[in-house]
Each structure stands twice: as structure tokens, then as C-alpha cells.
């Protein structure tokens, strides 16, 4: 197990190096001269040359990449071109709403999707199955911003049940916190939910044809216990894998969702940075998000041991 853990940890390194190289090249290839930007309109060519020198912009690519990685390893993500604040601090300030949104979305999606998938597999071929899977294909096809505006139109503008946009931290109160996050979570969660429901159905269906399921039925276990205790338990690995891989979709969706609902999180920071072409911030956000993706999938891999004791590393 420990050998595997170490090997698996090491295997994330090349992935992060590739991400790092890509992200660094982004700044390296970015049009415009950061030195000229920093120096301002009144600077002479001499001033700009001095700043270039000071920033180390005249060094070769690999030397700059090495230096940048060294800073990165020390938690230095660079400085925003526009606000002049460290990128790490900018992300830190915005992380809470994003984590809250991701948590409520995952909770919503997983708690609904898994029972949906089990039910569809159990009733495979019937109208219940078709209804659930039809719903899943719909959820898969509605872009976050389309479902978001449909939800806002229905629940905020017509019914006036929920706020149109904004964010309230949890410490202010659970009610307003959930009221603000309800629509974003549903809009963002529908794709994720569809993905998980589909894989749950497929993997439970596969397990349902096993002999031990027939045995469980034959010895008189109630259907619920067969489905959850036997079928779901054995179908767990692919489901958890998709939950991990789906994090990528979730992160992409967060960027759009926060923009639609005016949630002041990392996603909004990203959009603002793109519009302002604030490359250090774009870099930092991509690095952090990719790091989260790699980390979650690492945890998913390790969780196999707990889900299925037959798997040993």
C-alpha cells in the first residue's frame, strides 16, 4: 500500500510539470511586453529595458521556467498586472464562495444521481428507466448558463422565491447561504448529476447479472438491501472514478456559474482576468484548478481500497 502510495504520488509529478510548462509558456508567449505595461505610458525605451532586466525577461526560456517553478514551489504565484496584488492572495480571498458552491453542487448531484442510477438499473427497460435516462440526457445537454437563466427566470423573477444573484457566507446564516446557492448548485449540478446517474446505472446493471445477486434475492433479502448492500457496493469503483473525472466539468462550470450568479469566487476572478488579459492571474487560476483536479483523482484512486477490499496495492 505504502509503496503504491509513493508511486502514485510520484506519478502526479510529470502531470503537474506538463501543466506548469503549459501555463508558463502562456505567459512567455503572451502578446504585449509586461515590462512596458509596468513602466507605464511615460516610460522611455531605456526605462523599459531596465525593468526587463530587473524582471529577468532577457533570460532564456528554461532559466525563466526554472526560476518560476522555484517561486511556485514556495507558494509564489506571481503578481497581478492590474491590481498589483500577489495572485496567491487574490485566489485566497476568493476561494471560500467557490468551495461552498462546489460542495453544495456535489452534495446535490451525488445524493440525487446515485439513487436515480440504481432505480434506472433496477427497472431497466421500463418507462421508469427511460424517464430517468431521458432526464439525464437532457441534463447533459443543457449548458450551465442556459439552465441557469431558465432557473432564474422561473424561481427568481416569476415566483420570486430565491434571489437572482449574489452570495452570503455561511457564517451570516444557513438560510440565506442556501438561498443564494440553491439555483447555482442545481444549474451547475445537472450535468454532473447526469454523468453520475448514467455511470451508476451502467455499473449497477452489470453487477445485477452476477450470480451473488440472484443468491441474495433467492435467500429472501429485500430488494433495497440487494440493491444498496450488494449491487451498489460492488459497482462503487466506476462511480467514484466518474465523480473524480467529473471534477473537471464541475470546475469549468464553476467559472460560468459564478459569472451568471454574481458569486465573488475564483471563477469570477478568472473571467475578470481573461477580459483584462491579466496573465499572471490566469496562470495562477489554471494551476490551482488543475492541481485540485489531480489531487481529487489521486484521492479517488486511493479510495478504491476502501470501496473494494479485493483491490490491494
Amino acid at each position, binding site marked *: 500500500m505504502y509503496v503504491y502510495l509513493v508511486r502514485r504520488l510520484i506519478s502526479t509529478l*510529470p*502531470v*503537474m*510539470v*506538463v*501543466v506548469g*510548462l*503549459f*501555463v508558463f509558456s*502562456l505567459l512567455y*508567449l*503572451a*502578446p504585449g511586453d509586461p515590462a512596458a505595461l509596468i513602466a507605464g505610458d511615460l516610460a522611455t525605451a531605456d526605462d523599459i529595458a531596465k525593468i526587463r532586466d530587473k524582471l529577468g525577461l532577457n533570460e532564456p526560456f528554461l532559466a525563466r521556467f526554472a526560476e518560476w517553478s522555484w517561486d511556485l514551489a514556495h507558494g509564489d504565484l506571481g503578481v497581478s498586472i492590474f491590481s498589483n496584488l500577489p495572485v496567491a492572495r487574490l485566489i485566497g480571498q476568493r476561494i471560500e464562495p467557490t468551495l461552498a458552491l462546489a460542495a453544495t453542487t456535489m452534495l446535490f448531484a451525488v445524493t440525487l444521481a446515485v439513487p436515480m442510477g440504481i432505480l434506472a438499473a433496477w427497472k*431497466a*427497460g421500463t418507462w421508469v428507466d427511460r424517464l430517468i435516462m431521458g432526464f439525464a*440526457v*437532457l441534463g*447533459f*445537454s*443543457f*449548458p*450551465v*448558463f*442556459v439552465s441557469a*437563466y*431558465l432557473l*432564474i*427566470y422561473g424561481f427568481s*423573477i416569476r415566483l420570486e422565491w430565491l434571489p*437572482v444573484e449574489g452570495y452570503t457566507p455561511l457564517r451570516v446564516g444557513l438560510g440565506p447561504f442556501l438561498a443564494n446557492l440553491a439555483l447555482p448548485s442545481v444549474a451547475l449540478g445537472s450535468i454532473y448529476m447526469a454523468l453520475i446517474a448514467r455511470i451508476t446505472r451502467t455499473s449497477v*446493471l*452489470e453487477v445485477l*447479472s452476477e450470480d451473488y445477486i440472484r443468491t441474495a434475492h433467492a435467500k429472501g433479502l429485500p430488494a433495497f438491501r440487494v440493491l444498496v448492500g450488494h449491487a451498489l457496493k460492488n459497482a462503487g469503483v466506476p462511480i467514484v472514478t466518474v465523480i473524480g473525472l467529473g471534477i*473537471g*466539468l464541475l*470546475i*469549468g462550470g464553476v*467559472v*460560468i456559474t459564478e*459569472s*451568471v450568479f454574481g458569486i465573488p469566487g475564483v471563477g469570477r476572478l*478568472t*473571467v475578470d482576468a*481573461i*477580459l483584462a*488579459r491579466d*496573465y499572471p492571474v*490566469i496562470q495562477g*487560476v*489554471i494551476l490551482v*484548478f*488543475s492541481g485540485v*483536479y*489531480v489531487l481529487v483523482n489521486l484521492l479517488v484512486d486511493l479510495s478504491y481500497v476502501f470501496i473494494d477490499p479485493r483491490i490491494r496495492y
Partner: protein
Amino acid sequence: MTDATPAATEVDEHGSESVDLAGFVRRNPTVTLGSILLLAILLVAVFAPLLASGDPQALNPIQRLRPPSAEHWFGTDMYGRDVFTRTIHGSRISLVVGSLVALISVGFGLVIGLVAGYLRVVDGIVMRVMDGLMAIPDILLAIALMALFRASVTNVVIAVTVPQVPRVVRLVRAVVLTIRERPYIEAAQSIGTRFRRILTKHLLPNTIAPLIVQATYTGAAAVLTEAGLSFLGAGTPPNIPSWGNMMAEGRTYFQVAVWILLFPGMFLAITVLAVNLLGDGLRDALDPRLRRRL
């Protein structure tokens, strides 16, 4: 557009040759529904100038923010432009980006995947690069690339293609890895068959079925990513009507003029739904093992 071709012709063939169109429809309801929807959108895109003869960019300040009516079926936006005309014309960019990205990423992915799967020397490096690219969420990777380029349709296609290539590479490589140890490949090698011939005659044909399915899903993902990019203001330039652009522009007026957002949004969702249905149907049709379980 290419997404539609295989299924569309399939329907025709079954209809004219075996006369068992009803049987085909009954056996493949999702393929049928998906191809009909996609064909409809394709026709809309091709005949956009005939369906909506007005100029999608024509301003009409007197007729601003009018709700849907007999004159303006989908209403008008904040500059008085006709939302129906713009939505109809917007189908073009979505279908062009969707099909181009599907074609190009399958092309690149196929070549890289075949080589990586067959030549162990390059496999390690290629797959680490692919893993790295896959670790960056699609839309962020596309955004990052768009931040480097000038906004244009070509650049949108490139930016949307890059995140899709690794998925195709993985798929092709996986197929190659399961086949390369088979005796007939060994036999081909032992009689001195050239590398290129093994790739094209033995490995390539086995990848075609899963690739067709992957291509449809890639097309759907590309349509979504293009719309997402445009919605965030980092995609198709604003002088070309695209569903994402229209929704981005309509955002501020959402509470007073929901139609500016609603119609392009619905068209977008229906297009993606059509392609996904087609992909699901093709997957079931091409993988009989999965089908029997249904």
C-alpha cells in the same frame, strides 16, 4: 455537419434499400430522434439566409427590446436587431465549430494515439503530455489559448480542439494496446510487414467504431465549449452572431427581455441534445455487448 452525415445516410439507406425504415426506427429510437433533430438544425444553418432574409446585424434603434410578435418572432434585442434572424444565423457558427473540432481532433488524436500505442518509445512522453493537458479543465484550457490569440473563428476552433485531442489519443491508444499483442499482428510483424502497413491495415480499422462515437461526443462538447467561451467574452468575435455571444449580450437585459437569452439558449440545448442522442444511439448500435444489456 459531418456529425450528421453517417447517421443521416444510414437512415436513407435503410429506407430505400431494405424498405425496413420502420424497423430501423423502432430498433434505434435515439439515433432516429437525434439525426432528425440534427438534420433539422443542419438545414436551418444551410438555408439561414432564406429562412431569415434580414441582416442579422441590422440595427433598428426604434424597435428596441420588443417582445416576440408576428413581425419579430423571437422579439428584438437592445439594439433592435431581430433575435429570430440572429438565432437562425447563429446555428452556422455552432455547427461549423462542432464539426471542424470533431474532425480535426479525431484526426490528430488518431495519428498520435496509433503511434503512441504501437511504439513504446514515444508512449511514455506522449501520454504524460496528454495527462497534463487533461488535468486542465476544457474551458480553462480553451480560455488560456484564446488569451494568446486574436478572437477569430479559426482561433476558436484551435482553442476548442486542443482540450479534445487527449481524449481521442487515450481511446485510440487503449484500442491499439489491446490489439497489438494479438497473434495476427505478431504474424504480420514476423513476415516483415512494414510499420505503416500494420498501422493502416491492421490497427486503424479496429479504432473506427469507437472513434465515430467519440467524434459525436467531441462535436457536442465543442458546441458547448464554443458557446461557453463566447458567453464569457473570450470566443467568437462579436460581429458574428453566435448563440453564446447573443446570450452574453442579452445578460444585462435579462430581467426585462428574457427572449434575447431564451431563444439562442434553447437552440443551443437542442443542438447539443441532438448530437448526444446520436452519440448514445451509435454507441449502442456499434457496441452490441452494451446493447444487449439494455
